[in-house]
């Protein structure tokens, strides 16, 4: 393509409340821009599946080794809070899907409303998660506060053995009061998986707020809604991960 005489493709705004979209100069057509970005984003989501997949593999491995520990561990969690959070995420996935749909159909106010509702869902989820973490920390079930208790920098006894990997706390007991083998393990896995998931919730909410800024400026409409679509995909992935986390952590099979 010759450089002189090359004009960027502009997608016109469907109404006065919207602004036109100029296709990035390295793309020939809007369709090419859309499909390239989508392919890249699906690839990124594939890496996200593999990130969480490693953690799920760890879960299944240790669940099989210490089923009693996991069973009792799961009972320490409040499955009702887990079920509420599952419903909140499913609802927010619905509002996000509706938000993308509103952008596709150039409904500015509705896009704004559904994005705001999705962020509200993220906030409710994180507030519930905060109180769950708080209760678990108070019961001494988390490894984070004790992670470095056993660690000696000068190389003397127990050097380099972090509490995360040792069994010094005897955090859980079975029905008879006998401590469970590797009782900290369930909570180490619980906190690792839910914290990384929670980080995704926070990042997702931040991205939706950024989308809302664009919606306010009228950037997204039937002709161009790519960023709304991609952030929507990210949000659905957050929901997707939680669909597996809920039964595995709160209802330990």
């Amino acid at each position, binding site marked *: 393509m010759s450089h002189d005489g090359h004009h960027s493709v502009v997608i016109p705004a469907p109404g006065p409340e919207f602004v036109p979209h100029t296709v990035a100069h390295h793309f020939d057509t809007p369709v090419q821009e859309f499909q390239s970005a989508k*392919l890249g984003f699906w690839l990124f989501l594939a890496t996200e599946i593999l990130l969480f997949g*490693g953690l799920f593999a760890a879960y299944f491995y240790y669940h099989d080794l210490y089923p009693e520990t996991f069973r009792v561990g799961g009972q320490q969690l409040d499955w009702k809070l887990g079920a509420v959070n599952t419903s909140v995420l499913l609802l927010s996935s619905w509002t996000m899907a509706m938000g993308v*749909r509103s952008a596709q159909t150039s409904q500015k106010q509705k896009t704004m409303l559904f994005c705001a509702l999705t962020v509200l869902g993220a906030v409710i989820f994180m507030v519930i998660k905060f109180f769950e973490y708080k209760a678990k920390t108070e019961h001494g079930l988390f490894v984070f506060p004790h992670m470095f208790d056993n660690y000696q920098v000068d190389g003397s006894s127990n050097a380099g053995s972090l509490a995360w990997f040792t069994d010094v706390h005897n955090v859980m007991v079975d029905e008879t009061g006998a401590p469970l083998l590797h009782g900290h393990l369930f909570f180490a896995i619980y906190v690792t998986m839910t914290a990384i998931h929670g980080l995704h919730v926070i990042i997702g909410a931040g991205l939706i707020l950024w989308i809302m800024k664009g919606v306010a400026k009228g950037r997204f409409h039937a002709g161009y809604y790519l960023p709304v679509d991609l952030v929507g995909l990210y949000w659905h992935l957050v*929901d997707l991960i939680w669909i597996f986390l809920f039964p595995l952590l709160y209802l330990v099979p």
Partner: protein
Amino acid sequence: MGHHHVSSSAMFTNVLIVLLILTAVTVIASRIDFGPANMLIAMLIASVKASLVILFFMHMKWDTAINKIVFLSSFLFLSLLFIFTLADQATRRIDHPMHATKAKVSKEWAYPKPAMSEKH
């Protein structure tokens, strides 16, 4: 642009209702003791829910073939990770101390004294 697919609101709402019902089914199924099948049932329901989210909320049903291949291939590689990890575990010597708790923990089972420290 022909590649855009706009789904109806009713479809999204129906999917949401099914997802919420399946969440309730997950909780109820976990209350019933099916033995080792509990894990299978829980994962089966979760997989159905995940498929609904991927197909409809994420529009994968109407996406291009290349996007489908890219995303679904992650599950193929994930299955490799699971198969080799769990195959390793399943074929270890069962008298190894690592497997000491694979048997049901008895009521009289006592915790062996930790060799290291007993802080906290």
